C-alpha cells in the first residue's frame, strides 16, 4: 500500500505524468476525431511541468501537493481541460483539509469535490459527453465503497473501473459541451477524449494506491 501522506500524493501524481505521456498520442487521436486534436499535447505539456515543478518537502500535506499540481496544470495546460482539471484538484485539496494523511473517506470526499469543481466551471450535465461522464460514476462508486469501509486502494480501484465504464459509455452520445458539440450528430460514435483522460488518471492513481 502506498504512503498516503504528501510524499505519497506527489509520487502518485508523478506516476500520472508518465501515464499521460504514454497515452498522449491516443488522446490526440481521440480529440482529432471530434475536437481539435490537442488534448494529449495539452495534458502532456501540463504534466511535464508537474514533473519539473512539483516537489514535496518534508511534512507537506496532501492538500499542499494538490494545490501545486492544480496551479501547475492551470498555468500550463490551457484549452478546456486546464481550468477543469485545475479547478477539480484545487477543490479536492480543499475538501481534504490539512490532515497529514489520507484515508478512504477523505479520498471519496476529494473525488466528490473534484466533480463539483468541474461542474461549477464547465456547467456540463451528465450525458453531455464530457469528462463529467467519467468522473461522476467514479464519485458514486467511491462513495459507496468508502461507506462500506473499503481501503483507499479499493475505493480508487472501484472509482477507476466506474470511470472507465463511464468513459466507454460516451461513445454513442452526441456532445453538447466543448468543441465536440460543434459536430452535432457527427460526434456520436467516438470516445470523448476528456472522459478517457479522466479514466486514465484514476487508473493510475488506483495503481499507485495498490502498489
Amino acid at each position, binding site marked *: 500500500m502506498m504512503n498516503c501522506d504528501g510524499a505519497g500524493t506527489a509520487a502518485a501524481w508523478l506516476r500520472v505524468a508518465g501515464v499521460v505521456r504514454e497515452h498522449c498520442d491516443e488522446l490526440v487521436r481521440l480529440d*482529432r476525431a471530434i475536437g481539435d486534436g*490537442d488534448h494529449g499535447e495539452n495534458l502532456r*505539456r501540463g504534466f511535464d511541468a508537474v514533473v519539473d515543478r512539483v516537489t514535496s518537502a518534508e511534512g507537506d500535506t496532501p492538500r499542499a501537493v494538490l494545490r501545486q499540481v492544480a496551479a501547475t496544470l*492551470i*498555468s500550463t495546460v490551457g484549452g*478546456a481541460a486546464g481550468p477543469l482539471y485545475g479547478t477539480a484538484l484545487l477543490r479536492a485539496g480543499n475538501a481534504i483539509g490539512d490532515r497529514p494523511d489520507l484515508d478512504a473517506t477523505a479520498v471519496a470526499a476529494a473525488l466528490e469535490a473534484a466533480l463539483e469543481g468541474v461542474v461549477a466551471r464547465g456547467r456540463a450535465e451528465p450525458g453531455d459527453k464530457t469528462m463529467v461522464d467519467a468522473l461522476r460514476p467514479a464519485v458514486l462508486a467511491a462513495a459507496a465503497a468508502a461507506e462500506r469501509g473499503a481501503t483507499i486502494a479499493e475505493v480508487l480501484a472501484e472509482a477507476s473501473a466506474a470511470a472507465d465504464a463511464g468513459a466507454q459509455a460516451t461513445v454513442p452520445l452526441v456532445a453538447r459541451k466543448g*468543441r465536440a458539440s460543434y459536430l452535432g450528430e*457527427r460526434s456520436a460514435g467516438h470516445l470523448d477524449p476528456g472522459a478517457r483522460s479522466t479514466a486514465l488518471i484514476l487508473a493510475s492513481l488506483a495503481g499507485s494506491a495498490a502498489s
Partner: protein
Amino acid sequence: MKKIINDPAAVVTEALHGMAAAHPDLRVHTDPAFVVRADAPVRGRVAVISGGGSGHEPLHCGFVGPGMLTAACPGPVFTSPTPDQIQAAVAAADGGAGVLLLVKNYTGDVLNFETAAELIEADGVDVRTVIVDDDVAVRDSLFTAGRRGVAGTLLVEKIVGAAAEAGADLDTCERLARTVVTNVRSMGLALAPCTVPHAGEPSFVLGEDEIEIGIGIHGEPGRERTRLAPARDLVRMLLQPVLDDLEWQPGDRVLLFSNSMGGTPLVELYLAHGSATALLIERGLLVERSLVGPYVTSLEMQGISLTLLRLTDELIEWWDAPVSTPALRWGR
C-alpha cells in the same frame, strides 16, 4: 507535414522572437507569453486585451497597438492561453481605468479567461469580459457551448480599441463591445484543411472536389460537406445563413469583411468579395465599409469566411478611427 519550424513545441515562442524583431513598437514576452504595446500602461485608458490559440495570425498579437488591442495572449497553436499569461498581460497593460477582456466563445478560452478574471478581480482591478460568438454555422442554445467566435472578433477589437484609445470609459467600452457582438455575424468554408504542427496530420480530410461549409477556425468540422461550386454559389452559401440570422432591413448600412483562412490566394478572395458585395447590393443592403485579407486564419487552411456587421454612425466613427498595429493600420 511540411512546415518551416524547428521543434513543434517551440513554434509559438520562436515566432514571438520574430515578432519582437519585426516590430520594435511592441513589447514581446515569452514566459509567460504575451504581447503588449510598447507605451503600455497608458494612464487613464481602458486596457483592451484579447488572446486565444495561436495559428490564427495576425489575430490577436498582430492587432496590438494604438487604436486596437493594448495586449494579447497567444496560446499554443489552436489552444487557449492560460490564466497566468492573461494575468501578466493585464499587469503590463492596466492603466488604472479598468480592463476589458475580449474572448472568442470556445470552452477553453472562456474557462481560462474566466479563471484569470477571478484572479485579476481579486487583485482589485475592474475587469469585464465580453464573449464574441459571431459564427452562424453553429446553432446557439442554452444547452450547448453556443456559437463560436470567429472573424467578427477583429471588428470588435478594432471598434472597442478605437474607443478606448479616445478615452471612453470601461462601461462605454463594454457596451460598445456588446453592440458589435449583437450586430455581427460570420460564416466560413474550407477547401483544404490545415495541419497543426504538434499533430503532424491534417485536421480533417476532404475529397478531390469536396468542401466543408460552416468550418470553425481550428479545423473543426462545419455544418455540412458538399461539392465544390462556382464562387458565386459559395458566396451565397455563406451569406444566406448570415442574412437569415439577423433581421436585416433594406437600407441597412453594413461592413463586409472577406477573410481568407490562410491559404487562399488574394485574387480568389477579392473575387469572392466582389461577388458578395454584388449579392448584398441586390438584397438592398448598403456596403459602406470593406475589409479584405487573411486576418483571422487557420494556419494554411484554404477557404474563406464572410462577416457582416450592421453599422451605425457610432460604429463607423470608431471603425474609421486611426489604428496602428502590425496587421491593421490606417489614419493619422
